[in-house]
């Protein structure tokens, strides 16, 4: 009772500071803690809000417009009522107007730290409750005060809300907001310039805006004006370095065709390449389809057989339709390239969808890589071929048994709900019942699998701003977060995955768990290591990731492998299975670091004698010419740190080195007969 009395006193003290025309009533009941109050109308005179209480906001009259807007719904509010919450401990606070007495009221709330006039967003919510009602959740620090502003973005009517506290789960994560001035479709979060920091890419028809992440966590914004893209990235975007020059190229999946934006040699501009073919693009990916070491591109076609672009190693792409999903009228929405059968050859799963009542175009496909450039659809024997309506699927080893399982999320429930499938080798077993996905009603075109809380178990982000946290036993706990589907990357380099939602970065607050990020640098394989399998072993067990360009439906997330490690302080072994067949093993890796792995050359092929080739001039300033038997040869230049700085088709013997920094490099010439090495100097 002493504590309650103290609260009463505090409220009364606040009231005496309120303006004259404000009135509030306070009643304390033994059974129901209900405060009836007129919230204070200005930021400077908020009414205290206490946990365990219900407050009534009467018709909004305050004219302090809450800015910035932390919730969704944008600007437009003109009235507000203000409260002040002060945390006495580290707690998770829930503000809710989701109360039966509020009926159909349309509420919205902003939560701030800081001083009036210079407020900083902590949280906010529009519609997480029933209908148009609000449920806002934020983590509060002991002793810190938070301003709560209900606004009239939609309605000035009065309503009730509750304040409650829960102990702060130290392993739980949430997201804070950071604004970023994206322009157009903010569809990619990926390391564009190969400096080890994930960047943000937003595009319009005539501009590519890159926010380059700096080591200090800031972003350096650069606009690259482009020719007006024949096709815009409205349906999807993918990124990959098709010409091995160290700068990522982009693919715009448009409604009538496909445009490539190819980064030039020094990353200072992009050249548009648009095909004349009609492609109703859906998910797009970069991947080495024919395993020749060159990155190809794949695009789901909504209304025809899928299309792909085979790279000859000089950057020339050949358009092909047919062979990777031939349903005549398409239905292809969510392509994802993973190795489902652990043969270290990348396979293609396509989540498909179509109306017209069990159309063949809605039957999902698994194109198993035969290793000879051909693929065979094996979805039926695997138990993955049905009329389920899906636009994407989330692949991960959910049970840490060494193979890729899948959550095929529903875009519509018309042909059944979400499907959680356990990989049992020769077939998949439906694990949906009891998993939590069987009772989750949200639908989405976006489903992705990442470890958001770094506990070593891969989670699922999909519909309704919900992360399904993996409990490791084929059950998942759905938690509503502020982040919705978007490109995923580590946008503050803290080892926890963040989400980009348009002009807002949802920064993962993280927890005490450890992590490891592995970035790959292919030599014989494509430079991004797309299609590689990365396996790590720690006390938790063995975790696996497949490096992919393009997961979910629309967005391009980071390239690399991100692992949560829980309490584990050491990774005993990291194994990389490269698309080329090379296997690299690194032992005793420290945690909470980024590990760069360059594909080893020495173990891959026999070393050719020094006399096999000549290179001239050496030293060189612009280009070098290699003489010898060059059919099928690839030139790979490594810098002093062993990183790939250039990878190019060497069939004609001429290699442009003009963009390289002055210094010494090792040229690796890889041919069918073996590898030849020579040290060259760039002037």
């Amino acid at each position: 009772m002493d504590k309650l009395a103290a609260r009463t006193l505090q409220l009364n003290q606040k009231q005496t500071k309120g303006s004259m025309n404000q009135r509030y009533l306070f009643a304390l009941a033994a059974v129901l803690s209900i405060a009836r109050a007129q919230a204070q109308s200005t930021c400077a005179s908020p009414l205290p809000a206490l946990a365990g209480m219900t407050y009534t906001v009467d018709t909004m009259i305050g004219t302090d417009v809450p800015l910035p807007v932390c919730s969704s719904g944008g600007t437009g509010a003109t009235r507000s009522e203000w409260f002040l919450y002060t945390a006495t401990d580290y707690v998770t606070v829930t503000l809710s107007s989701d109360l039966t007495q509020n009926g159909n009221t349309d509420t919205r709330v902003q939560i701030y730290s800081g001083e009036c006039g210079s407020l900083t967003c902590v949280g906010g919510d529009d519609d997480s409750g029933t209908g148009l009602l609000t449920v806002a959740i934020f983590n509060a620090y002991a002793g810190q005060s938070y301003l709560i502003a209900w606004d009239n973005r939609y309605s000035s009517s009065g309503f009730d809300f509750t304040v409650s506290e829960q102990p702060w789960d130290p392993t739980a994560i949430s997201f804070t907001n950071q604004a970023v001035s994206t322009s157009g479709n903010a569809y990619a979060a990926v390391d564009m310039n190969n400096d080890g920091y994930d960047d943000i890419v937003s595009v319009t028809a005539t501009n590519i805006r890159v926010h380059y992440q700096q080591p200090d966590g800031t972003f350096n914004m650069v606009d690259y004006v482009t020719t007006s893209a024949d096709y815009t990235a409205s349906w999807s975007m993918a990124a990959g370095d098709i010409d091995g020059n160290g700068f990522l190229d982009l693919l715009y999946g448009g409604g009538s065709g496909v445009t490539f934006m190819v980064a030039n040699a020094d990353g200072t501009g992009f050249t548009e390449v648009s095909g004349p073919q009609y492609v109703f693009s859906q998910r797009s990916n970069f991947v080495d389809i024919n395993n020749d070491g060159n990155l190809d591109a794949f695009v789901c076609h909504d209304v025809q057989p899928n299309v792909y672009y085979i790279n000859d190693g000089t950057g020339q792409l050949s358009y092909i339709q047919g062979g990777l999903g031939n349903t005549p009228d398409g239905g292809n929405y969510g392509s994802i390239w993973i190795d489902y059968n652990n043969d270290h050859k990348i396979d293609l799963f396509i989540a498909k969808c179509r109306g017209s009542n069990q159309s063949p175009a809605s039957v999902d496909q698994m194109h198993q890589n035969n290793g000879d450039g051909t693929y065979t659809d094996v979805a039926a024997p695997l138990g993955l071929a049905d009329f389920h309506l899906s636009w994407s699927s989330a692949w991960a080893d959910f049970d840490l048994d060494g193979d890729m399982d899948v959550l095929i999320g529903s875009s519509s429930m018309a042909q059944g709900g979400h499907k959680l499938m356990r990989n049992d080798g020769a077939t998949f077993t439906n694990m949906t019942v009891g998993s939590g996905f069987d009772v989750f009603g949200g639908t989405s075109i976006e489903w992705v699998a990442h470890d958001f809380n770094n506990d070593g178990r891969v989670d699922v982000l999909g519909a309704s701003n919900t992360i399904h946290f993996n409990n490791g036993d084929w059950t998942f706990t759905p938690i509503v977060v502020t982040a919705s589907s978007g490109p995923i990357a580590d946008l503050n380099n803290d080892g926890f995955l963040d989400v980009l939602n348009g002009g807002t970065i949802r920064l993962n607050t993280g927890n005490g768990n450890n992590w490891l990020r592995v970035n790959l640098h292919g030599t014989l394989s494509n430079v991004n290591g797309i299609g590689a399998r990365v396996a790590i072993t720690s006390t938790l067990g063995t975790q696996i990731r497949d490096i992919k360009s393009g997961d979910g439906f629309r967005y391009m997330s980071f390239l690399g492998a991100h692992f949560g490690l829980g309490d584990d302080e050491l990774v005993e072994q990291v194994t990389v299975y490269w698309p080329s067949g090379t296997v690299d093993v690194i032992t005793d890796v420290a945690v909470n670091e980024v590990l760069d792995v360059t594909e080893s050359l020495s173990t891959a092929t026999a070393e050719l004698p020094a006399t096999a080739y000549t290179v001239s001039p050496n030293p060189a300033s612009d280009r070098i010419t290699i003489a010898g038997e060059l059919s099928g040869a690839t030139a790979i230049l490594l810098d002093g740190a062993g990183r790939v700085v250039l990878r190019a088709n060497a069939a004609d013997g001429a290699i442009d080195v003009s963009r390289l920094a002055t210094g010494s490099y090792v040229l690796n010439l890889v041919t069918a007969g073996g590898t030849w090495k020579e040290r060259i100097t760039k002037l």
Partner: protein
Amino acid sequence: MTRRSFLMLLAIVAIVLACRHEPAEMAAPVPPVDSVASVSVDLDQVPYPTLSQYRFFTGAMAAHQPNGGVLPYDVITPLFSDYAHKFRFVWMPPGTSASHVSDHVPLDFPNGTALIKSFYFDNVQPANVRRILETRVMIKRDGQWLFADYVWNDEQTEAVLDLNGRFVPLTWRDDQGTDHVQQYRIPAWAECFTCHKQNDVAMPIGPKLRNLARTVEYASGTADQIGKWVDAGYLQPGFPVPQPVARWDDPGTSLNDRVRAYVDMNCAHCHSEGKHCDYRPMRFAWQETANPVNLGVCVEPEDPLPGEPQLTYIVAPSNTYRSMLLHRISSTDEAVRMPLLGRTVVHAEAVELATEWINSLPGPCN
């Protein structure tokens, strides 16, 4: 062009797919020469490489003067096609006629029928002239409809078969003198099929009796259209009197019926049972929209849009800001806009209608 030639070339590797929906091979058929120059629809030869070979029109083809047996027709509420004007014609082989099945499905047309629709703009700049862009022809052969699309030349003398799809830059001036700059889309074959199908079978959309129950100005004067079809021998008599759809732009008709008519013609070809996108909850066909739930009123969208979480209902009564339908018909983003195909600019008058309608609905949702 320079950007295309630099660094990379996209070469077509022709992959011929066994595909029952593929257009017929483009041979070079020679239509039968007929001394009276009557319409020619040789089902062994169609689609012809050029529009003129059908002889649907007499005189200068651009004038669209119908040849014998070619009957102009019109619908009560049309599909919006980026403000293009349209000429519509029907032709059936002599001695054949269509029969009525139900008000809610297209007429059952005889083999050999050609449905002809030309798309044009007036006051096209800089010459401020009429420009015909394309003539779409659907022909029924062996019980199946085939698509042909003829793209007009700049001289407006001929149109050539092309089912690859393309954009045509276009500036036209409206009655108020405002110029509209557009990228007019001529559809590829697969785009035709996406809308013109039911359970994966190609079909027409417009010629349902309920859409045709109106008067039309013929050369001989204004007449009841359905009566004209019967008189022409194109429609077997004995059908029940159709219940016509509303005119979407008739201010004397209720807002609700105008909206129902608009979504019937503009949206129902995807959002009906057996159609391309029937897995979404909307049911937009005229006979289904008496129930507001089928219009999406107070129905939550299954496919929320990135960055637009305020769109909590497909239609939120009295709340345009929260209505997904209004947002989508107001957008030109090709991954957001509705209809998905056949529109690149906003139909401002339809947005105005939908806004007025949403504001007239009692709300909010329970």
